[in-house]
């Protein structure tokens, strides 16, 4: 029997990896992958808590919704990244700096 703590430790690790990717990556798609990792750690948390704490399906339903939201977000974000790529031929976010004070 796997304990709740195991799930929470794995999910926290995935969350931290995602956060590191969001902060460190220069590639816009890399940042989006970091966001996906964060959302997956959220899903893992919700499902683990639904199994051990709540004993109902509320957490599982939220996890399904989070998957849908992640897909919608990826669709919009990739379209925007593609639009940037069409004009700049790069998706390095450090070079996208037309506006500075």
């Amino acid at each position: 029997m796997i304990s709740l703590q195991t799930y929470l430790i794995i999910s926290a690790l995935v969350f931290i990896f995602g956060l590191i990717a969001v902060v460190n990556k220069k590639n816009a798609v890399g940042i989006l992958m970091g966001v996906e990792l964060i959302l997956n750690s959220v899903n893992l948390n919700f499902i683990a808590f639904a199994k051990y704490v709540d004993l109902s399906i509320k957490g599982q339903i939220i996890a399904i919704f989070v998957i849908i939201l992640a897909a919608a977000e990826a669709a919009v974000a990739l379209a925007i990244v593609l639009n940037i790529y069409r004009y700049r031929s790069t998706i390095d976010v450090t070079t996208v700096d037309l506006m500075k004070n």
Partner: protein
Amino acid sequence: MDNVSSIKFFIPELFLTVAVIAVIIAGLINKNKNKFLIPGMSVAALLGTVILSFTQYEMGMNSLFFNMTVLDPMSVFFKILVAAATIWIVLFSLQQHMKVEYYILLLITNLGMFLMASANDLLMILVSLEVVGLSSYVLAGYYKNNMKSSEASLKYVLYGAASTGIMAYGMSILYGLTGETNLAAIQQQLLTQQPYNLTVFISIILIFAGFGYKIAMVPFHFWVPDVYEGAPTPITAFFSVAPKAAGLALLIRFMTTVVGHQLAPGAAEWLQNMDISAPLLIAILSVLTMTLGNTIALQQKNVKRMMAYSSIAHAGYLLMAFVVFNKEGYAAIMLYLVFYLLMNFGAFFIIHMVAQKLGSEDIETFYGLGYRAPFAAVSMAIFMFSLTGLPPLAGFIGKFYLFAAIINGHWYWLAVAGVLNSVISLYYYAGVARAMFLVKTETKDAVSFQTFDKILIATLVIPTLVFGIYWTPILELTMRSIKLFAGN
């Protein structure tokens, strides 16, 4: 309340949904032959929604769709506020001849904000924030051939996605601690079980990342200047008021359920559920927010970017009133939002009109405008002084109630910080007035604006002046609206 009997309390949202579908179909049939059909339909739909929302004041307090959303006077107030804001935005985009999608996205954002104002469940909060977020990302990049607009939308989507993820993680911890997703049920669990303080505090901070991002709170403000500068100006005006108002509605509901509980049923005061000193955290964040916004705004040469920092500073003023945890504070926030809508829209609209005619948003463009376009310049000066909070304008009344609320709550150092910040802000707001009236320029030829634009500005200037002297109706409306649904 179950789904079928909830429907009769959900009519404004259903009306708006039908209107979105009708606008999509009309856009397919119309093929741009009639330029005013789609904007006209959007305005009619929004006006209908405002009227339907007003009738909901009489419906009392209910929880709908198995406690997913609630209907209470506070949510009705915010629904009317955001729908009215969208009407102004649609009218102001009329000259641009935007495509059909623009209006559809505005209406969908509106629907999302309606749900934000009435969300009562972690799932509903997540979904409504994403509905508003996803359509806002596209709206920010609406001019897809314009590099600045594309860049704005890229920055918006990256920061938005990351902060939503962090907020969702905080929600998962809160769910794990309480085993509930409904906000009122979470409150009950927190009060009866008393879980470990630090864990609750961390989860609340993580959830604040999502709310703070929507209302442009430090340290989640990085997207604001670039997005506000790059997005089309009517959309910038929209972002600075409507999603911020909806985010504040969400924050009020979160503070009164998850963070606090009512002292007694119907009481005007709230107490914290846990010993976590949330007021001090918010006080520090609000001081940081307004100080950062005001000091960086001082250095700006581009007026649109200056207004972006000014909107960060105003988020700080609005956050101030959360520390007192009573009805007076929440009523002050709602009152200030009404006046903030009027003056901020006015300022952005005039920047937009000037940029359309003279081709730039820099402060140099405004030199000598007082002699070239007197009406626009005088209106701009009124909006600027109202944003500073000088009497006898509406902004003064709004700030007066905010400061009164926190002084009555004995937060004197916070009030002093707020007043000092208002003094700093006078420098850059007055700088725009100085550029328009005191700087002499070579070109003296008159700049003429269209009558429609002038009428639209007048609909914002006149209330700004009138509410500075006679604000009782708005105050009564907010007092009537500050009833929150608590419980299942």
